[in-house]
Every structure is written in structure tokens, then in C-alpha cells.
């Protein structure tokens, strides 16, 4: 079904261009952001030094999924149909936020601010969240990829169903 939907959408040159452009942009974003846990949350070209095979693999996978999703969503919107964007947004956010929040001063600063208002609730929450992200990065990237795939499937279904789902 996904292949059939892609065939429909990528039939147009404009959508093929959008796919290629999205892939390049998101690959660059993922390649500089996924290793940000080694650079204190900075997503920059310096982060490229800390890339390994796993991070490159996830960067290519997630960039490819986003690149296939983007033209499909635009296609559905232009057709007047309602695209599924929730899982796509969730997948992108998890993939980007996990390395930024792990090991950077961002979360402790934020939690420190909140803890000043509600100490018992947020006193150690920042560290717990950071520790969890740092030790479960692969699982989080897998979850992000899965969400993107689900979004691709949901939107592909709508593309193949055609105008019957028009809102």
C-alpha cells in the first residue's frame, strides 16, 4: 500500500523535488542533532565528529521516512483530504529532542526553575529524565522511527483510498 501511494504521489516532478529537498535538509538536521548528546546539546557541525554507524543509520532512516512523508502530507492537503500529522510530529520531536535534552544544561536549568516553585515535585525529575534519555537513546530513536513509519502508513492509506476520505 505504501508503495502504491508513493507511486501516485511521486508521479509528479514537483513532489519528487520536495522529497529530495526534504531528505537533504532532514539528513543534515539529524546528522548534526543525533550526536548532540556528546556535545552538551549543541546541534552543530562539531557534533559530526561524534557520529557512529548506529547514529548515521538512524539519521538516514529517519530522514528518508520524513522525506517520504512530507510530499504525501502536502499531496493529501492539496487534494482537500485530512492528513495524519500527529504521529509524524511525535516521531520528529522525539528524534530531535532526545539528544538535545540528554547531558545538556537545558533540562536542569528548566527543572531548577520549576523546582523553585514546586520543590517536592520537580527536585530530581530533570536528572531522572536526562539519565533515562542518556541510557535509552537507541530505544527512543527506534520509537521515533516507528512513529514516522506509522505516519507513513496512515497517510499512504489515505492516498490510496482517494477522495472517499475527503473532509
Amino acid at each position, binding site marked *: 500500500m505504501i508503495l502504491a501511494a508513493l507511486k501516485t504521489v511521486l508521479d509528479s516532478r514537483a513532489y519528487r523535488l520536495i522529497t529530495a529537498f526534504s531528505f537533504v535538509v532532514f539528513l543534515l*538536521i539529524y546528522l548534526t*542533532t543525533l550526536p548532540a*548528546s*556528546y*556535545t*552538551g*546539546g*549543541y*546541534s*552543530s557541525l*562539531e557534533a559530526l565528529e*561524534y557520529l557512529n554507524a548506529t547514529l548515521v543509520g538512524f539519521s538516514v532512516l529517519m530522514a528518508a521516512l520524513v522525506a517520504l512523508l512530507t510530499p504525501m*502530507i*502536502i499531496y493529501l*492537503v*492539496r487534494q482537500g483530504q485530512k*492528513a495524519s*500529522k500527529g504521529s509524524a*510530529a511525535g516521531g*520528529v*520531536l522525539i528524534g*530531535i*529532542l532526545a539528544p*538535545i535534552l*540528554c*547531558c*545538556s*544544561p*537545558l533540562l*536542569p*536549568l528548566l527543572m*531548577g526553575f520549576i523546582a523553585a516553585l514546586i520543590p517536592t515535585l520537580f527536585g*530530581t525529575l*530533570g*536528572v*531522572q529524565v*536526562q*539519565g*533515562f534519555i*542518556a*541510557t535509552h537513546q537507541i530505544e527512543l530513536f527506534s520509537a521515533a522511527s516507528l512513529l514516522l513509519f506509522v505516519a507513513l502508513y496512515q497517510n499512504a492509506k489515505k492516498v490510496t483510498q482517494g477522495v472517499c476520505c475527503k473532509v
Partner: protein
Amino acid sequence: MLRRLRYRIGFLLALLLVSNGVMALTLTTRSLPYAAPDVSFQSQGKTHSLKEYRGHKVLLWMFSTWCHTCVAGVKALEKQQAALEKQGLLILSIRNHNNGGYPGPDMTNFMKKFGPYTLTSNNWVLGESSTEMYRQLNPTRFPDIYFLIDELGQIQVVDTAPNLTMNKIVNFANSASK
């Protein structure tokens, strides 16, 4: 709909920019330099006080063994080891109290894995932070924070991620003695 999609992509890019901006925020609210507090840590079963290291240039690095920048930091410091040792910089590698509030490997296993040279090096001291040291020097519970302390016990620099800010450490080590 397309406009909303553009807004969302814009939000994502803004999020990246903001996070980079926040990272540039200072890690201490106090103005530098200021006197290092006389706090203690445990090393090889003994209690040591920061005061003992007066007269030395000190890199006091407080980190947690679950954190990725800490792994990169050990590797980066080990790379610069010869130069830093030559300049007489003492490196106090102190694990945050209770490992910063999240479980991880103990100090010896962590160093064996990522920086074995540190276990035999003369200018490295490995230790565990006391509650008081953690409370006074790292109240915001950063997983990775370091202090450059001069021979007079004055904290000159506070920063994070030695792998990214090695130039500050090298410049401090190379600076003229007080």
C-alpha cells in the same frame, strides 16, 4: 493547512536555535573569580578537602557516569594528558553525589573503559563527591560541570563538556602561575 505545516517546521528549527542559545547560558550565577568552597570528597577510602590542593592549578570536574558528554570529556582529556601534565594541571575527576541521581557504572569501571590512562597517571585524582560538595558546587545538578581553580583557590572558569571547551582548559594550564 500548508501554512500550519510551515509553522511547525519553523517551530522545530526555532527549537534547535533556542536550545543552542540556552546552552550558551552561564553555568553559575556568581561572578568570576570567586573563592572555591572548602568542601570534601572521597578518594581511595580517604576524605580529601579542596583546600589540600592550594598551590596547584586544578581542574575540578564533576560528572555522572551515565552522561555522554562525560565519556567524550574523558577521552578528550586523555588526548591532552601529556600537555596538561607537563603544565602541572591537577585533574580532580569527581563523580557527582549518588551519580547525579541516576544509576550508572562506578568510577573505576567507567575510567577503565573510557580513560584507562587516568588510573595510573600522576596528575589525576579520582573521587566521589560528598553531599555538601555536590550541594555547594553543583546545586542545579548538571551531569557535567567543571571548575578551573588557580593556585590561590580562586575559581576562574566554570563550564561544561571538556571535549568542546578544551581550549579554555589548555589556556588555563598554560597561563602564568599566580
